[in-house]
């Protein structure tokens, strides 16, 4: 029997697969079968372990000199990834930079998700003048050139964890707000929302317990990609010298080493690889979630 004629899920008896399962469990099953998504999860967990767990067993100062300047990786005194212009170990910088980068990305994403979800939910649910007002505000932020605005915000204030997080958060929420609004507009007119109202549910209850759980799959996908974008924006800011000098993020490490890029490629490349792998992991997970929740979009 050719392989293509085998049952789709030979490991599951009839009636257990597909329609039998709860919506969340079915999506999880789809996700686990997606090799790219699992690779994304692997990348992300590796980066998280590297950034938050490895430093616990690795008592070193990323600012300390360990050898001569510009020692190439693998050579005498160069360690795993070489040293930069001041003789600091790049491997240590990469490991300690992860926490700084990911904390900013997480903080900014939390802000984006909070602002985007609440404004989008209000605009979509209430419509009318609430919608018009919130949409004008959103459009205002949307037409601002994002990175430029973030640069201005960070440059005006001292570059610190909070200003950078705020700057990234304030330019990226409109996209999620519009998506949330669109989902609420779609779902609020469905029968089960009407039915919820007919059993006496309040507006707050309908927004949080009836509509939001149904919009969540779409929003989770979007939030994953937003987190990737936040890391890239942070790297951009830090590269331009607007990183928090107190915490050496990956972007900051790249920015610091860019003058020596032609002779000392490793000081730029390894932190860059770390960013690349993290964002790739997030994108693969995001795509995997999208496929899992909406198999119709597959292969698009």
């Amino acid at each position, binding site marked *: 029997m050719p392989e293509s004629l085998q049952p789709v899920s030979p490991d599951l008896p009839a009636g257990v697969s597909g329609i039998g399962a*709860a*919506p969340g469990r079915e999506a999880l099953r789809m996700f686990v079968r997606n090799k790219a998504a699992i690779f994304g999860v692997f990348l992300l967990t590796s980066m998280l372990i590297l950034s938050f767990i490895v430093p616990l067993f690795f008592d070193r100062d990323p600012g300390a000199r360990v050898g001569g300047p510009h020692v190439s990786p693998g050579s005498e005194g160069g360690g795993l990834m070489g040293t930069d212009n001041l003789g600091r170990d790049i491997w240590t910088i990469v490991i300690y930079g992860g926490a700084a980068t990911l904390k900013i990305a997480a903080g900014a994403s939390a802000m984006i998700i909070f602002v985007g979800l609440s404004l989008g939910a209000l605009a979509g649910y209430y419509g009318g003048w609430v919608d018009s007002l919130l949409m004008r505000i959103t459009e205002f932020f949307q037409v601002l050139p994002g990175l430029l605005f973030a640069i201005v915000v960070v440059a005006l204030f001292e570059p610190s964890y909070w200003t950078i997080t705020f700057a990234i958060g304030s330019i990226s929420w409109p996209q999620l707000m519009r998506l949330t609004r669109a989902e609420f507009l779609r779902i*609020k007119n469905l029968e*089960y929302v009407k039915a919820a109202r*007919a059993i*006496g*549910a309040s507006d707050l*209850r309908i927004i949080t317990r009836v509509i939001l*759980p149904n919009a969540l799959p779409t929003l989770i996908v979007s939030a994953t990609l937003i987190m990737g974008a936040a890391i890239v924006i942070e790297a951009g800011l830090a590269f331009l010298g607007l990183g928090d000098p107190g915490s050496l993020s990956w972007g900051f490490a790249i920015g610091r080493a860019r003058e020596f890029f032609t002779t000392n490629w490793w000081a730029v490349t390894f932190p860059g690889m770390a960013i690349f792998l993290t964002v790739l992991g997030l994108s693969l997970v995001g795509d995997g979630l999208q496929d899992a929740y909406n198999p119709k979009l597959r292969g698009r």
Partner: protein
Amino acid sequence: MTETKPLLSVRGLTVTFDDFVAVDGLSFDLHEGQTLAIVGESGSGKSVTALSIMRLVTLGTRAKIADGELLFRTPDGSVIDLVTQPEAVLRDIRGNEISMIFQEPLTSLNPVYTVGNQVAEAVMLHQGLHRKAANERALEMFDRVRIPEAARRLKEYPHQMSGGMRQRVMIAMALSCDPTVLIADEPTTALDVTIQAQILGLMRQLQDETDAAVMIITHDMGVVAEVADDVVVMNRSKLVESGSVFDIFERPQEPYTQALLASVPKLGSMAGTTKPARFDLVDFQ
């Protein structure tokens, strides 16, 4: 039965969508234990009437209750006008004293929660019960609407159930707080004929058990004949004729009612013909 004071008295209800009058001066009474059918063609204002009684018609639309009173007798005996009540009072009434079943059982349950959860939520909302007591109540309601294997079914998601079962869940949800008025907006239209008969039978039984007043909206004369005590015929936003089901079927007074009844095909009336019959278009302006 009509000697008792009405539970719900609709007086001169007028609902407008901008310039369009969707319901025009409609009046009728609904009594305890009575089943009232509102019949009429599509767009005659039946559903708008139902949504107006729930005060849900103005949400997300440009509809306005322009005139009239919706006098509702609360369980403590006082009579309130639903048109003038604030939203907070209406929320207490919805689902608790006046419940509604919708036309589409396939889409009126939330796909992300189990059906048992949804019935329990309705109970918790109004009766202040804890999760455990609410779950027990949900199980009891599932038994009452004759869902087989109720305990197992409680844990299922809507997409795992058939249309008929889902409509039973909707009925269980609507009746979970023992409402005095149940509004059913075409409860059987989306179901096939055998399931229709089951659901209608179930509604009858439940009404006998609870003594609730039922207002059933339909365009199906078969449904009317099956369940209704009294009938209100609507056409073009207005009340055409009302009366007991026997009067309406035996001695329809208005030409529109006569035409509506005549439009119901009779089994065997087409025997021997090969082409569809022409339907006489009548205009009652």
